[in-house]
């Protein structure tokens, strides 16, 4: 027996039958998140995007689903595998990168450092509320003049008696304007430290970034700290130095390398559907060779990206995932998704630029995803260094 069967017809939407590589619990999770996205996100996301809003009630719904901080143990968190967290990100981003960003920031950037480096009091105070979506978190690392080189940050925290006093500005902060708590990284005499900052503290202000054409269904803010006074126990006791924020970013990037596959899949499926129904020259445009090539290339790219994501997920669950392998996934899957989105846009022609279809929305979102959480260029240099042993950053 050759082992190759001609009687099998793989489905166009999961050509390599990656679903067969998921266990029953993973399938239940995927189906649940996909149902929720289909019911709660897809019907309205075009309008939210147009208006530049994300409804506040989604936080509670995501909490009810158990997706906020789902990969953390205890404190109201579900304790999922990393692969499960990734699969949830994938399904959320098939809806919109803004919704996935909300979950990434809440779980990986705000809850994770409190969970990993926080005091017992900090954990008890914040994690159950954040897991339920009743408290929203944000993560302050990037500054107006400090992006890819975060260690050049200017925000400072100075001791004043037992207290800490923060001064500085953080930029491009997802959820900043709606957050109840900010995890802020600042320069101190002891190196970079993290602080748990309730956003109703005097001296804290948030304002929207300039009007944006990407991630419109997501809150992006500038945070300003002016003589913001915190008690001594507001510092995250468990970490000093850049290892703190960078470990959070590794968690979030891992979610993104799955999420991007979801955005790409949504674009490919939209193009496949459109090509089958749109007629020109008296036949569906799917009957033209140039369109078929685009469809096939998108399908292959999405399936390959999915295999990469799932493989990296399994490696992470086995405790064998290198940070440079996260860079591989983040760099290539987001670049793949952006390319697929642009190709899908061309298949949809003029309709592809409207919010009646998902592709231009995903395409614009992916421009942000391409840059945030380690730019494509930085991840390329991380991999270049891994290959050659030569640091080409500086």
């Amino acid at each position, binding site marked *: 027996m050759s082992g190759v069967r001609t009687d099998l017809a793989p489905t166009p939407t999961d050509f390599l039958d990656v679903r067969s590589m998921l266990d*029953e619990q993973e399938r*239940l999770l995927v189906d649940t998140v996909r149902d929720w996205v289909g019911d709660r996100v897809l019907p309205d996301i075009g309008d939210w995007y147009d208006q530049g809003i994300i409804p506040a009630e989604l936080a509670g719904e995501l909490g009810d689903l158990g997706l906020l901080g*789902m990969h953390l143990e205890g404190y109201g968190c579900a304790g999922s595998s990393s692969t499960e967290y990734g699969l949830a990100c994938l399904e959320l981003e098939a809806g919109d990168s803004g919704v996935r960003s909300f979950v990434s920031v809440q779980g990986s950037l705000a809850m994770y450092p409190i969970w990993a480096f926080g005091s017992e009091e900090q954990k008890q105070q914040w994690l159950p509320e954040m897991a339920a979506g009743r408290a929203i978190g944000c993560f302050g690392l990037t500054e107006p003049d400090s992006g890819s080189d975060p260690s050049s940050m200017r925000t400072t925290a100075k001791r004043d008696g037992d207290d800490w006093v923060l001064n500085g500005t953080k930029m491009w902060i997802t959820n900043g304007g709606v957050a109840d708590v900010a995890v802020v990284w600042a320069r101190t005499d002891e190196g970079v430290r993290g602080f748990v900052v309730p956003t109703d503290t005097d001296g804290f202000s948030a304002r929207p970034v300039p009007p944006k054409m990407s991630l419109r269904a997501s809150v992006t803010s500038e945070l300003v700290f002016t003589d913001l006074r915190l008690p001594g126990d507001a510092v995250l006791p468990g970490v000093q130095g850049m290892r703190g924020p960078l470990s959070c970013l590794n968690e979030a990037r891992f979610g993104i390398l799955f999420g991007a596959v979801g955005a790409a899949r949504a674009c490919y499926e939209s193009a496949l559907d459109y090509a089958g129904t749109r007629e020109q020259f008296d036949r569906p445009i799917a009957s033209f060779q140039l369109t078929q090539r685009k469809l096939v290339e998108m399908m292959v790219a999405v399936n390959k990206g999915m295999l990469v994501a799932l493989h990296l997920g399994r490696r992470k669950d086995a405790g064998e995932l290198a940070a440079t392998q996260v860079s591989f996934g983040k760099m290539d899957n987001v670049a793949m998704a952006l390319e697929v989105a642009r190709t899908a846009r061309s298949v949809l022609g003029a309709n592809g630029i409207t919010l009646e279809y998902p592709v231009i929305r995903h395409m614009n979102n992916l421009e942000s995803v391409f840059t945030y959480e380690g730019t494509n260029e930085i991840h390329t240099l991380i991999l270049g260094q891994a290959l050659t042993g030569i640091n080409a950053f500086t």
Partner: protein
Amino acid sequence: MKVIVPVKRVPDTAGDKVIDADTKTMDRDAGETVLCPVNEFAIEEAVKLKEATGAEVTVLLIGPDGAQSTIRKALSYGLDGAIQVTDDAISGSDALGTARVIAAALADVEFDVVIFGNQSTDARTSLVPAAVAELLDLPSLTYARFMEIDGDAITVHREHEEGWDVVESTLPAVVSVVEAINEPRYPNFKGIMAAKSKPLDVKSLADLGVDAAAVGAGDAAATMYAFEPRPPKAAGTIVTDDGSGSAADDLADWMEEQKFI
């Protein structure tokens, strides 16, 4: 309070249904199978009872080993345990045969209320809940669009074409619910994770004391004589207006001809 929710594994409602030409029954292995969507409304009522009264909720499924993923899906809503009745002899049972198996399984356990969906999305007979009630000699409260339990009393609003009847009974009772009764929640991830560790009690017909000859295709009260795929949709009638408004008359004539007006 103890609640039983019978659930069914059905072909994915989005896919095509395949009838096996030899057995004239549905080929349940052709394509994805899912928890019958109507069951989700029954589960939601049970979960509400659990939240309000601490009720213990058990799902009951008649089906082969492969149906355990359906049980897990049902349990993921936070239910307490499951009973599976599996036996090759059950294959091909009609509604009455299925009801006999469910009734036997229910006779074997304690319960206060059984909550069915009013129909399954594959067979859509709506016969099983009433048949089970009859076999167990219990009150049958079908087509409930509202249900409320107060001590030993249950009240439902039974939906029909002209509105609803208020039906009251004592417990134990058998209820079937319609989709208007609630809006099912999504399972949460903790429930999904907990589902695999919930107790599952697997029983055969012999365990339940059911004569295999009384169920299955051989003893079915209903016989399928023939089936054929739904014919393709016929081309519609196009009424063209020549610019004089003639289409309005033509359309009215056509509707009268079809006895629409």
